[in-house]
């Protein structure tokens, strides 16, 4: 590999991180640093929690071959509706949460069945789901708003004024727990990377260049420390962040370390080959879409907690945020390519653009135009770089 292709590879691999840094710097400049203020950093997380969760699920669908799920916004709304009604009737909060997840899972399985076993195109199936569950939410709520009054629920799932992890250390102006968590995360990350490098070298396996690993580690540690410091300066760790991080970690593991996760990539890469390798591809589709339903259920929980109510209009265009994040985050529109961390960066990029433009006071309609252009640019990048490679 020549040094030129090395640089090109590097740029290609980390395009979205570079873009994220540039966009953040741009807004930091235009908003006089307001975007980096503790409260805004916290907002980027809390406001976009549902996007992170949905985008992770959407990635699994897109991996199977660029298939999307249009119904997630409506499913979010319907699950939220069901939850609000249950809690309105004083059902135990944890039972309600469990039932909401089950409802999401069942809706996912219902759509997954048609897609995987009857071969109804995902676009059509989920378009139908989008209409069905939007309609059902309206029917259940009779077009009205239903308040969610269970305070414990609201707090645990990241809504209301006090939705932060309590600081056991009782810091005065700064949230010590938050800092401790940040530092611990960095240490764990460094230990794992080092151990990985050592065993790889011992076993004489290929490992990335040392310099690249070190640079990557330094950047990640710096970002994590800065980020937790900012959060600590505000009110600490938002509860929503806990859920988001849990989802990211679980699904990063699933997509990179489990066979079913790798089969998602295989199906998207070459379905015939996957079949010939003896894999039942129908099960893979079923898994992807059922799982999407489950995560839409979780997103529904986060949504009604944050907004402390259920309304028949909730969740509109959520599917577009999720799909957009995936493609901006480097998922291929043809399937088979994309990672959970990449998608999270895509979602962050969207979130930063959103909040940055809001602070700047850009008209909401122009915000849509910009987001649309960013999405288009990301996919053009994917298509063009694919063409060059082939």
């Amino acid at each position, binding site marked *: 590999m020549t040094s030129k292709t090395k640089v090109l590879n590097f740029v290609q691999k980390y395009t979205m991180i570079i873009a994220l840094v540039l966009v953040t710097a741009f807004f930091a400049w235009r908003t006089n640093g307001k975007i980096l203020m503790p409260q805004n950093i916290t907002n980027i997380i809390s406001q976009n929690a549902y996007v992170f969760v949905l985008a992770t699920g959407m990635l699994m669908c897109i991996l199977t071959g660029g298939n999307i799920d249009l119904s997630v916004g409506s499913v979010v709304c319907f699950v939220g509706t069901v939850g609000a009604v249950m809690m309105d009737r004083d059902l135990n909060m944890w039972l309600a949460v469990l039932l909401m997840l089950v409802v999401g899972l069942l809706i996912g399985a219902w759509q997954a069945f048609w897609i995987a076993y009857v071969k109804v195109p995902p676009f059509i199936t989920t378009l139908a789901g989008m209409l069905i569950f939007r309609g059902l939410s309206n029917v259940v709520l009779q077009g009205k708003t239903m308040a969610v009054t269970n305070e414990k629920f609201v707090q645990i799932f990241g809504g209301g004024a006090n939705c932060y992890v309590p600081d056991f250390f009782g810091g005065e102006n700064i949230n010590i727990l938050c800092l401790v968590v940040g530092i611990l995360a960095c240490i764990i990350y460094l230990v794992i990377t080092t151990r990985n490098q050592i065993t*790889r070298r011992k076993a004489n*396996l290929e490992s990335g260049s040392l310099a690249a690993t070190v640079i990557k580690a330094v950047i990640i540690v710096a970002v994590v420390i800065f980020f937790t410091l900012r959060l600590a300066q505000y009110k600490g760790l938002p509860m929503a962040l806990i859920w988001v991080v849990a989802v990211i970690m679980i699904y990063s593991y699933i997509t990179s370390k489990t*066979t079913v996760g790798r089969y998602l990539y*295989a199906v998207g890469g*070459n379905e*015939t080959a*996957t079949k010939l390798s003896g894999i039942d591809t129908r099960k893979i589709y079923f898994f992807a879409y059922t799982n999407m339903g489950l995560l839409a259920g979780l997103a529904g929980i986060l949504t009604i907690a944050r907004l402390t109510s259920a309304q028949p209009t909730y969740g509109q265009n959520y599917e577009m945020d999720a799909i957009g994040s995936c493609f901006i985050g480097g998922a291929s529109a043809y399937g088979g390519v994309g990672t959970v961390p990449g998608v999270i960066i895509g979602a962050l990029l969207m979130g930063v653009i959103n909040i940055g433009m809001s602070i700047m006071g850009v008209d909401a309609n122009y915000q849509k135009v910009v987001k649309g252009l960013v999405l288009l640019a990301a996919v053009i990048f994917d298509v063009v770089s694919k063409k060059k*490679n082939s």
Partner: protein
Amino acid sequence: MKDDIILTMRGICKSFPGVRALNNVDFTLRRGKIHALMGENGAGKSTLIKVLTGVYSMDGGEIRIEGHDSPIIIRSPQEAQNYGISTVYQEISLCPNLTVAENLYIGRDTSSTVDWKTREKKAGELLEGLGIPARPRQQLGSISLAVQQMVAIARAVDTDCKVLILDEPTSSLDDNEVEMLFRLMRDLKTRGVGIVFVTHFLEQVYEVSDQITVLRNGELVGEYEVDKLPQVELVSKMIGKTLDELSTIKNKKAPSGEAEVLYEAEELSSTESKKFDFHIDKGEVNGFTGLLGSGRSESVRAIFGADQVTGGIIRIHGKKVQITKPIDAMKNGIGYLPEDRKRDGIIADLSVRDNIILALQVLRGMGHPISRQNADAFADEYIKALNIKTASRETPVGSLSGGNQQKVILARWLLTHPEYLILDEPTRGIDVGTKAEIQRLVLKLAEEGVSVTFISSEIEEMLRTCSRLIVMRDRNIVGELTGADLTQERVMSTIVGRGDDHE
């Protein structure tokens, strides 16, 4: 000797609606031997392979494999693999987005989590053992096709295969890559793997194979030891002679040199074909011949602009014209019946009528629709003229037999009243009666002054209809035969490159 046999297929039969694809075919594979399976298009090679790998179920016959006392039944590619029969297809059947290591082991996982380190270690050992120049962590799509092919072979070998089927593995490789592949094949031989090598490259067969089985028209021609079968004989066995009612058809016209040159190309080339010169007279029937893959189809596709034209000067009636895409060719009075009727010819779900008027409508342009009345009249006219057997002009063309589908495409072009008609394998996979009709039609058109270029895998057919044959080998024109030279022997000797050593 008998103990060395690892696979026998006896009396294999397979029919598709209207076609007898395999008729009583035998095939035997021995341990540590490379066995070439040869035959022209439609000979039944791929059908035989698909029966063996469980893609098709056979209508009759039996398959036996070493280690099983009774005949086995193979229902799916998966079952074939369980019996130790692995296939590497022409198109790489791996996932380009995954790493080499992952491609080697996917679908063979034993646990629900992936142990990357062990997997990469095992992959590294496997690749090294077979001398394959790929690293486990490389993304498959980033390595050359040849190495991808070899990775696919490594995967097959690692599943304890006894029978390895290589279906045209070399068709997209260059010479060095082919050599690499052959080294791997020879290595596998010494490990006792029996290899079925499907290809249409003669030299390659002679370079690596031990035995050859030749099929023709779905029937077994014979099994031969490579060193006892000269190339010329192999070609004649592949092409064969079909003596039938067609023998009365004959193009008596010899190129006179007086007729006007209709079409002339100098150094024409496309992305798929090398530079070549070509011309055809008014009312002449000529043909491109050569084995499959020799570039005969690619040449006519360049003439029609079906592939991207990359250079050359074209004259029609002596006037310089630009033909870079099909519509240019059509406007200059050229029609083209493509080689693959199902893929490039018919639009299966449209009616016979709509298929017939398609080219004419395109020529007229969107602004001048053909009225329903006219369309019906055109369709009826050609259904009658070409004797197309269809329930009505409204019938979807996909439900017609192969021969009648072909006539519909012919009608499509005849309706545009072309001056020059290119027919690529118009008689493939259709019954003898329709073949004769099409050949007579070609000669009739020529008498009416239409120039025709005709391509067929059956040499007899071309000798009957063409007054000039252009012979191709390895994408180059290697000879041109006319008059007394139009004999089967001359064509074959020209194909194998011994055009000059006739006494």
